[in-house]
């Protein structure tokens, strides 16, 4: 889906985001027949009371209407099909899908058995909780790192650097955004993971304080595959998305507002914190959710770096784990060999859960945007 952010009609950034509902695109369907053509054709004044559509126009209008509903139809189709596929899993697993943590396809050699009228391999049990935890925690790491870095990078590009350099850095952000996720995955496996596990994480683990929350940094550091590496790679993947959006946002902060803050004797940091960021705060939230959506749904890189361990909760921040998206892609092959189709059905239900999660992230962002714009202002207003 395409999300177009238009701020005060002056400038817009177009970024594509999976499952983004903040600003759904739409084809403008207002007033398709404007009558000018008729005036020329019919050689009489256009009636302001009635709109007369010649046949061709009517067809065009209906075709455009159809096109404008296409994205919605596609979404409904996907959700419907996914739900249909997931039905057997929903029937068998029930609430257990959301409360248990085993992820076992069962024995594919034994004869299938039937529960609630659904055939499935004996011993099959699917509980999605660890995958939800994995998905949320990798995305959380990514967002916590990416948002401040992106804001900082965008501010520096817009305000501090000479025009040429900032143009070049902006371009390189866009190039970074275009790097395929499998390349990020390779880099994570071959470079970042080993580097972290050899040089960084043992040190952190040794010196982290053993107090609640921070003790997630203690314990065995593993071989470099797992939660932390996945989160870091994800953050790198979403920084270009968030930073380039923020760059466009900060460009729209009026110089007059910034100068007002400087004239009061504020430091550069205070100018950024009191003027720049509040000025575009709702846009920053939107940008962050775009990034979050990407992180939640990112598949290939995480499948390569996470260690693909299902069925257990990560013990600390270095643990191997998996996410919903990564599990779907790495297990689909073997799931297709399940003659009862129950495994595939469970993966489909997992897909539904992922869809619901990105939807909730978007709704949460809407809520935040509303709260923020209550005290501050929409971007570009005022001066």
């Amino acid at each position, binding site marked *: 889906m395409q999300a177009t952010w238009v701020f005060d009609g002056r400038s817009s950034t177009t970024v594509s985001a999976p499952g983004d509902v903040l600003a759904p695109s739409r084809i403008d369907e207002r007033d398709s027949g404007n009558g000018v053509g008729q005036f020329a054709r019919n050689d009489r004044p256009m009636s302001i009371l009635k709109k007369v559509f010649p046949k061709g126009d009517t067809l065009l209008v209906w075709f455009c209407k159809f096109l404008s509903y296409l994205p919605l139809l596609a979404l409904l189709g996907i959700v419907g099909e996914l739900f249909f596929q997931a039905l057997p899993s929903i029937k068998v697993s029930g609430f257990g899908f959301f409360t248990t943590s085993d992820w076992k396809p069962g024995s594919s050699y034994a004869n299938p058995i039937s529960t609630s009228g659904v055939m499935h391999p004996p011993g099959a049990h699917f509980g999605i909780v660890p995958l939800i935890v994995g998905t949320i925690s990798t995305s959380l790491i990514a967002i916590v790192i990416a948002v401040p870095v992106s804001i900082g990078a965008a501010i520096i590009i817009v305000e501090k650097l000479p025009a040429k350099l900032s143009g070049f850095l902006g371009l390189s952000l866009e190039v970074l955004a275009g790097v395929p996720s499998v390349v990020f995955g390779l880099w994570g496996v071959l470079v970042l993971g080993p580097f972290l596990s050899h040089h960084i994480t043992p040190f952190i683990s040794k010196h982290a304080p053993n107090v609640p929350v921070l003790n997630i940094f203690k314990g065995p550091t593993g071989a470099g595959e797992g939660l932390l590496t996945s989160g870091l790679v994800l953050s790198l993947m979403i920084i270009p998305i968030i930073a380039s959006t923020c760059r466009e946002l900060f460009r729209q902060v009026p110089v007059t507002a910034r100068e007002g803050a400087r004239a009061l*004797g504020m430091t550069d940091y205070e100018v950024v914190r009191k003027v720049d960021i509040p000025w575009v705060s709702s846009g920053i939230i939107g940008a962050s959710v775009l990034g979050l959506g990407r992180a939640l749904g990112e598949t290939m890189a995480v499948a390569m770096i996470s260690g693909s361990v299902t069925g257990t909760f990560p013990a600390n921040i270095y643990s191997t784990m998996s996410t919903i998206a990564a599990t779907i892609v790495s297990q689909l092959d073997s799931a297709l060999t399940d003659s009862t189709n129950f495994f595939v059905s469970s993966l489909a239900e997992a897909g539904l859960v992922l869809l619901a999660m990105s939807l909730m992230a978007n709704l949460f962002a809407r809520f935040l945007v509303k709260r923020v714009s209550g005290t501050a202002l929409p971007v570009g207003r005022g001066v």
Partner: protein
Amino acid sequence: MTQSLASDITTGPNQGDFDYSQKRIDDASSQLQVPLKTIDLSVGFSHSTILNEISLSFPKGTITALVGPTGCGKSTFLRTLNRMNDHVRGFWHKGSVVLDDVNIYDKSVDPLVLRRNVGMVFQRPNPFPMSIKDNVVSGVKAHKLAKRKDLLAIAESQLKEVGLYDAIADRMDDSPFRLSGGQQQLLCLARALAVGPEVLLLDEPTASLDPVSTSSVESLISALVPKLTIVIVTHNLAQARRIAQHAAFFFNGELVEHGLAAQVLEDPEHETTAQFVTGRMG
């Protein structure tokens, strides 16, 4: 209220070196104190020179109007007085700007403290994206001039001082962007006053306002002297005549004439000034 700009130089009232003697000034004002003056100040950006050797004094507790055709360098001059041009690429200056015996471009001067003492209000109201109350005390907070619990009282008293309080008493936590342009400009004045400046620089503060708002801003400015020393750039000669005691006429980066407002604006010595003040020149 007056804060030492440079810790190693003592500041104090500066008697007697205000030199208008050749400008037919009456005896009373020859003893004026001068908190702010420029000495042979030349300013430019990169290769261009915008202002040429300007020496101008701003007598304490008075309003000085800077007038001149568009593009003659009034804003640039004003922004040099609180180092706002420091941020502009290619900015250079020669000569000095002296505030309370200290050259503000001296290495020992902290521009942030300087801007607290020399406040500035711009042509267009520029409230910050925060509540009205937070706008007023934003500078106070940034400089840690008051305790958190006193902020509301400060905001209220500043808004009362600019005459805005009654209109917005129940909207202190609302966005400033819903105020009218004139109210926004009064808010910006309140914000600038809240940090307790001794000099206030105004760059065409009423240029974007309607006549009613203009007159309320004007009466506020007039009420701020003699507590503050005010320098106002205005393209509105009637306004200069209404509120200013002193005036300076700039033309093409040169200071052509300065002195008492009545003299410069009504009975100028120079032909260019006369052309300008009689409306024969833009």
